[in-house]
Structure formats: structure tokens, C-alpha cells
């Protein structure tokens, strides 16, 4: 699933995103061959498109703007991979936040 890989790479490139989160039991992951991409689920939609849902661990930052930035980055990243025609809705869910080490 090239969309899953492109979407996850794009999301992880956004400042404030720490890593993909597989939900704790692997429910939010996509297997690409032997590789497993934690934190991304791609599903077929009507009209030959695919939705991409990202499940992320974020840094301690405002989540609303971060979510918007992730969505934009995913659309850009998937577009750069030449798959923009196949991309449907992009969902972003924050499953955990990671506090900085020096946080009290």
C-alpha cells in the first residue's frame, strides 16, 4: 500500500508528531509486505479512492493546529508520490502525547 507508506512518512515529517501509534494491540497498523506500518490504516472508498487514517503520538503541543498540519502534509506527501487521485478523506487521531523529559 503505497498510500499508507506515503501518508505515514508525510505525517511523521510534521514537527510535533512523535511517532505512529498502533493502538496498543496492532489494530491501527498496515502490513506492507513483511513490513508493518504502525499508525496508519488505509481503506477503500467509493469511486476508487482510499481513505488514510493516521493514529499518532504527538508532542505536548496544541493538537488542533497539529492535526490540520498533518492533514495538509499527508495530502502533499501522497500527491508527491503521484497518488493524489487515489487519496480520499484523511483522518487524524491522537492516541497519546509525549511529555518532554524536563517536564515537571
Amino acid at each position, binding site marked *: 500500500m503505497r498510500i499508507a507508506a506515503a501518508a505515514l512518512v508525510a505525517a511523521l515529517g510534521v514537527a510535533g508528531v512523535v511517532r505512529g501509534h498502533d493502538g496498543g494491540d496492532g489494530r491501527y497498523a498496515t502490513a506492507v509486505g513483511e513490513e508493518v506500518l504502525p499508525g496508519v490504516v488505509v481503506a477503500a472508498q467509493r469511486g476508487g479512492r482510499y481513505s488514510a487514517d493516521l493514529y499518532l503520538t504527538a508532542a505536548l503541543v496544541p*493538537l488542533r493546529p497539529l492535526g490540520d498540519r498533518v492533514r495538509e502534509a499527508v495530502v502533499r506527501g501522497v500527491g508527491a508520490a503521484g497518488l493524489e487521485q487515489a487519496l480520499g478523506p484523511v*483522518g487524524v487521531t491522537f492516541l497519546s502525547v509525549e511529555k518532554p523529559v524536563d517536564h515537571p
Partner: protein
Amino acid sequence: MILLRAVVRVLAFVVLLALALAGAAVALFSIQGGTTGLSIPSLAELIGLPELGGTLDRFLAGLEGSGAIDALEALAGAGAVLLGALLIAGAVTPARERLLSLDDAEEGALAARRRPLAQLASALAERAEGVTAVKARVRPGRRRGGRVTVVADRTRPSSKRDVCAAIGSALDPLTRPFGLKPKIKTKVAQRGGRVQ
């Protein structure tokens, strides 16, 4: 489904507890031999097992008989099957994630689990003046939004009203976009709390 899962958990706990108690009782009563006093035969007698066995035998014989099935028995059987099916469904159905929705637009949804939001609420509230420690909890609403409950320790000289106002302002970047209603409680910090 949440209720069913809770029922299954409570039932499992009760059954395990009953098993443990029964095991302990059997072990205790087995120490003594004979048929009187503290022994297995007298325990069975005590809890009416022979009578129960006789009653059950008669009940099963009645069920197996050629006559018409009693409506009450049929209903009880159907109820037991239904209860069993519901309990199995409660046990094996995966729990639905309770997420707080930020945006449910056609181009994709934006949501978060309760825990990161509670962590964010704690981090934000800890910045408020006069606060030494914070515990936060987020409960999603039925459709949208929800409630964030913050319990904060404050320094002795700070006033409750000022600290509540400061926490309310500090939480604003979280409560506004997520449609969360803040509920803020404060108490004077005990000794050993973080000094701000």
C-alpha cells in the same frame, strides 16, 4: 456494549471469588474425615445438596417426559440461552474507542483519545499561577464535546477564585477547539507539593 462488558467483568469476578471460597471451604472440611461434624458429607448435608440433587432429578425427568413443555420452563431456557449469548457477545466484542471529535469534515476526521487530552489539560493547568499539582480527566459527550475535570493543588497564599480563573484561561487552547466544558476544583497543597 459497555454495560455488557462491565456485567461480564463483575460476573467473572464474582464467579472466581465464589470458586475460591468454595475451594477453601472444601479444603477446610476435607481435613476432617467421617460423616459427621466438619466433613464433606456433613457440608453437603448442610447446604442441602441431597435435596437439591433430588429436586434437579425430578425437574430433568419432567423435562424429558413425553408431556407438553411447561411455558415457564421454556421461557427460562430461552432466557438462559439469551443471557449466555449476551455474555459471550460482551466478552468477545472489542471495546469501542471513546474518542473526542474535533472535526468531522468530508475531507477527514480529526479526533483524540481522552488520555492525551487529559495530559494536555494537566500540562496547561500546571502553568497557571499558584498551582502546584494537577490531575485532569476528560469525559467525551454523547455527540460532540465533553467535560474536562481538573483537580489542582494550590499554594496557601493564593485564592481559590484566582487560581480557578487562571486554570480556566490556561485550559482555553484545549477546551475551545474540542468543545470541552471545564470543571475546576482546587485545594490547598499538602506539604511536599511542588513549589512554584
